[in-house]
């Protein structure tokens, strides 16, 4: 798959718009989902997807085929932009999560609609997704991105090392701690759900 990308990237570098269009068509789904997993909102995910492709378009010269797959580089550009975005909006997030955490949780759980008997199984699954979103948002940024890249994006440890530009040991330690905190957070949220 790398060679297919490599050829088309070379064409895009030379300014072939059709090649660029192919790159965008190929990767939009993946980039969009990465954004959604980081920010949890579709409108922001749409805007960020556009920003990422603009950045990739401007920096496509700096992609070196020998240093790895294009998709890893793309995810890396995306992740950097998402982290910048997170830093900018961090103050807002902190205020929300500190002042109204309890209310927030309740309202999210309440907002899961009452289910018809036939839809019960699926409803539970919806609920699980809401819980996961909640728990992910509670993680420290470094741990959250490690978990997103490993368990939602299902990337290999090697790819995550390349994207985060940290050594293997650090990647493993972040994934380990991220998962533990996620698991504990989910456990707490589940217990609260039962109480309600």
């Amino acid at each position, binding site marked *: 798959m790398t060679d297919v990308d490599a050829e088309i990237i070379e064409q895009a570098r030379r300014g072939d*718009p059709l090649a660029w269009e192919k790159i965008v068509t*190929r990767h939009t789904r*993946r980039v969009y989902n990465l954004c959604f997993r980081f920010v949890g909102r579709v409108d922001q995910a749409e805007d960020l997807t556009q920003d990422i492709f603009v950045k990739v378009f401007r920096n496509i010269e700096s992609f070196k085929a020998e240093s790895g797959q294009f998709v890893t580089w793309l995810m890396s550009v995306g992740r950097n932009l998402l982290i910048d975005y997170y830093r900018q909006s961090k103050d807002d997030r902190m205020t929300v999560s500190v002042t109204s955490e309890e209310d927030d949780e309740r309202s999210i759980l309440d907002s899961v609609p009452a289910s018809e008997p036939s839809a019960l199984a699926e409803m539970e699954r919806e609920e699980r*997704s809401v819980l996961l979103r909640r728990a992910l948002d509670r993680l420290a940024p470094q741990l959250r991105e490690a978990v997103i890249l490993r368990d939602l994006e299902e990337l290999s440890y090697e790819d995550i090392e390349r994207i985060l530009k940290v050594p293997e040991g650090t990647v493993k330690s972040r994934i380990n701690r991220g998962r533990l905190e996620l698991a504990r957070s989910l456990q707490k949220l589940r217990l609260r759900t039962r109480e309600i």
Partner: protein
Amino acid sequence: MKVECHQVENWLGLYADGVLGEHQSSMIRAHLGSCETCAVLLLELEFAIALCKEYPELDPPPQLIERVLERTIGQHRSLSWTEYLRELFRPLYASPRFATGACLAAISLSIVMNALGINLGEVRWSEITPQSVVDSLHRTANVAYDNGMRRLNGSKILYQIQSRIEELQGDDSQPQKRPQAESESRDRPRESSATEHRLAVRTLDPQCGQVLEGATAPQAGVL
């Protein structure tokens, strides 16, 4: 060598991934056999990981590729239908989830197109937005995937596609006869969430229909 709970915690998230060496793994196994706290923690970890893996994959909105192209090269789509679909479904990713979703969507798309008598090579951009057709099929594919790839309701897909095509062909004055929740999910403001997305998925009735079996192999050639 005996290990303590806090040491196990340093490894348990990786143990769940199976990336530890045999030595560490066997120490952890031994500990788990005698420590209920850590055994429960492992279950919680496995639950968390499973939850991540079932987190829904969203379909990007139809206009997103268009907007990206406008912001970068300042022009609209110019790929042909077949090229577009080929790029859209290119099995780029090692992740089985991505691969399966795209593959199923491609299969169901070609089934529907064939059933409608549409030759992909002849369809023009002005007539239809492929992404929106693909979107509805992605949903179908998700449903099929959820149901063990077995039960796909052919007539429902056809109905969906037909109403989508009618809708795209214009005449806003004519009332659209598409399923209720589907129209809700499209007309709703942009804050629609993953949850809503999944709810929309469920509007397709995944009962009966054996379209998928038998129809797959020959159709793949369309793409």
